[in-house]
């Protein structure tokens, strides 16, 4: 019978605020039980998209189908979702229990049933015994758990989270990441979370939607996005990336030159005429420092600019010149495990050979007109 139909379908969503275009042609399918991330820089339209999915904002055009039902024109109160905001948005004059029960009470359920459900939800988010407290008497992390419990109270088919962790400090944030993911898996609820934190997205998501300027740039599993970023923007936004300006070399398919160095890229199929300008990209942790310049392929001879201790590793800032008189040398960042530093001379100004493995290099064609 084929794949089950997606739980949520967004079709050609456009959104304008007056003259500003907030979203442009967003089409997206979300599978039931999936944890999807909307990731992108500030102002790229993540919140707007989430609010459109919720019905809190109407799209200028487009279509939304949720659980087989066209909900495009329905206001939020007629849809099926729970929502958590960065500000928690807990009602300050209601206790934790009353906050969680807020939607349940409106359903005119029997009192005992409501109380039981509230207890169940409190257990779910690990806040047993705090039901008589007011939000102001809780820590930020606890407040966000209450918000989560409240969003789940009506057992919605869809859970929406708008940067729920960004107001919390680092340690609490790390704990809650794991808890939210575990909870989502356990309940099997379809979830969409907005974030501009790539690490959060990489650790929590089933799939990531990378957005920029109101458009979707790439959709994929975390590993796929990290390893095969579709554009330099994605490469730079998700994880760190070194960009080396290069030219297609005539020495064979998949060979490029950056200054005096030749770099072979594995799996490069595209036939560009020799001399075409490209951007070569490689992640800092994929680069390796060689003990000495062996003259083998894929090695760049660089000079040390600075060394920073980062805890688990050192961050080396290196550079090399493409011509002897180049004003702005090409910079390069390398992450070096702590124990590996003892074998190398890393004083500022020291010459260091760097190996860029052929299977770690990516090539981005420059958009027309971008060549400098």
């Amino acid at each position: 019978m084929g794949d089950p139909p997606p739980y949520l379908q967004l079709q050609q969503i456009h959104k304008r605020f007056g003259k500003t275009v907030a979203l442009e042609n967003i089409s997206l399918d979300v599978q039931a039980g999936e944890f999807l991330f909307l990731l992108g820089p500030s102002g790229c339209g993540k919140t707007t998209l989430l609010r459109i999915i919720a019905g809190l904002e109407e799209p200028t055009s487009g279509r939304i189908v949720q659980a087989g039902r066209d909900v495009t024109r329905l206001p939020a109160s007629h849809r099926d979702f729970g929502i958590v905001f960065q500000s928690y948005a807990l009602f300050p004059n209601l206790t934790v229990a009353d906050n969680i029960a807020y939607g349940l009470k409106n359903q005119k359920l029997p009192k005992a049933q409501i109380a039981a459900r509230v207890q169940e939800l409190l257990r779910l988010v690990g806040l047993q015994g705090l039901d008589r407290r007011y939000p102001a008497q809780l820590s930020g992390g606890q407040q966000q758990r209450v918000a989560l419990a409240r969003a789940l109270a009506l057992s919605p088919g869809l859970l929406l989270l708008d940067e729920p962790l960004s107001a919390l400090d680092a340690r609490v944030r790390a704990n809650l990441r794991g808890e939210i993911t575990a909870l989502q898996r356990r309940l099997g609820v379809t979830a969409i979370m907005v974030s501009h934190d790539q690490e959060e997205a990489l650790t929590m998501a089933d799939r990531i939607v990378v957005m920029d300027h109101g458009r979707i740039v790439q959709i994929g599993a975390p590993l796929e996005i990290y390893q095969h970023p579709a554009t330099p923007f994605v490469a730079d936004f998700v994880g760190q990336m070194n960009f080396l300006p290069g030219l297609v070399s005539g020495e064979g398919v998949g060979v490029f030159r950056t200054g005096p160095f030749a770099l072979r890229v594995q799996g490069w199929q595209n036939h560009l005429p020799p001399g075409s300008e490209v951007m070569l990209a490689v992640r800092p942790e994929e680069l390796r420092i060689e003990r000495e310049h062996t003259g083998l392929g894929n090695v760049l001879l660089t000079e040390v600019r600075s060394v920073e201790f980062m805890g688990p590793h050192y961050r080396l800032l290196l550079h090399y010149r493409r011509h002897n008189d180049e004003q702005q040398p090409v910079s390069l960042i390398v992450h070096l495990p702590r124990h590996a530093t003892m074998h190398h001379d890393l004083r500022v100004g020291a010459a260091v050979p760097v190996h860029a493995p052929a299977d770690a290099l990516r090539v981005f064609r420059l958009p027309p007109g971008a060549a400098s």
Partner: protein
Amino acid sequence: MTMRTAEERTLLLPHGRVRPVVTAEEWLRRLLLLLVVGFLLVGVLLPLVPLVARSLSDPEGRFVGPENYVRYFSSPGLVSSFVNSLTIATATTLLAVGLAFGYAWAIARTCMPGKGLFRAIALLPLFAPPLALAIGLVYLFGNKGLVTTGFFGFFERTLGLPLAYNIHLYGINGIILGELLYCFPQAFLILMVAASLADARLYEASMALKASPLRTFWVVTLPGMRYGLISAIFVCFTLAFTDFGVPKVVGGNFNVLATDIYKQVIGQQNFVMGATISILLLAPTGIAFVIDRIAQRRQMAVLTSRSVPLRPRPHRLIDTIALVYCSLIAAAILIVIGAVVYASFVDVWPYRLGLTLRHYDFRHVGGGGWAAYTNSLWMSFYSAFFGVTIVFLGAYIIEKSRTWPPLRHFAYFLSMISVALPGLVIGIAYIFFFNPKSWTIAGFAIPNPFAFLYGTMAILVLANIVHFYTVSFMTATTALKQIDSEFESVSASMRVPFYRTFARITLPLSLPAVAEIAMYLFVNSMVTVSAVIFLYSPQLRLASVAIVHMDEAGDTAAAAAMSVLIIAACLIARLVYTVVVHQLNRRTQAWRLP
């Protein structure tokens, strides 16, 4: 399973603009918005139409263009009133804003003792009708005043010193003094807020740069209070330019626009000229209003980052100067109000100084006596109750809903402009709008659906609510803005109707603001004269109007007694407010921020 029904397939067709379904809840919001807009149209905007029309017509109702204005400006007597009003307003504004600036600065930025007391005294005139302040001046500086007669000749008799001093109260001196007392607390309130908003970091930076205190004042203090100053100037100018009470009592032969309107309408029944002068009264306040709005919009941009509140540091000399300065001003306010209270108990001023309660027996004077007082209490109560309901619902629907944006903006606009309408203008406009049994529009007679309101309590309440709408509205809007805007979103996601969230969350969180608005409406309805003097009916006399009539008839002691009653009612309202807010704070302590 994956087969799509025909219906689903048609739904899949891409369609154009998305038009959300209008739910019953949305209709309810629309209805609420329409009611608010309707109220503001009838209360604020529409009554101005016949006012403008009248000023452009002859007494028979024929259109004559600007003829009335030409006539006004070619009558030297009338033009001098216009100039007089401008003079009074300018002088009062300079004095009131200048003095209040120093007073507010002393309270906010020095370590002098007794700040709470000084604050309370500065606000005291807010609880008295401007008429009462003028009567206090009469008892001090009038022909038989305490100062004019040298304490009734006391100094002359005992010390042989001619310490009597006549300031020639009746005329420009008296008006400016009275308006100063009337405007001072208003300017003080605004400047106090501005002075408290100061950012300590700016002062620290200035100190680190070793700037002299004087330079710090010019470079940091003044710019920081710029918008507060503009607002205070706008408020004082408008109040002094349009006030009726003070010139009525101590104006003598010095005519101003406000008293001219009263004479034209009440004295000569010349409604056309009354309308014309009203428009002239409106013009400068309208301009001041526009300037203030532009300035306040700028301020929004400035006040984005969070500032660190400034803690004043003790400084012997400055604190002493501040204390002396504030004591002098506070004493002046207390003496004027004290004079009213004292005079209301004195048997025959200044001949028999024994104390008596006979002036509180209003049976032998005009004005309506105790019945008028009771009417005023009820009117103020209704204004507070219905006013706070309408104001708060209006602010709520404008601030917290997404219904019909253009109409919401229009409602906001109407809510903001009422502050530019002087009470006298509201009063006259209401006569033209509510009194006729039918309106004549382009030759057609249309029955007036609101005519039944004329001469009732309802029109008095309406006039008061409209007169004091803007300040109340801004209080409500500020309170609502402090409530997380996502509460409505969260409630919708839980399918809780908006009115339940309003009742359960929004309203309880706003109760202090609600109490403040109700208190403000009550007090101002109690003390105001200008709007209601044209609208009360002989069956429904009012306390503040009674003061005018008693004073006109020479029953100054009775007028003082009525003033004291009004002040007492206002102070009690204020006390109730304080207790209510205190109780609220105690009850809600658990959920407010620790």
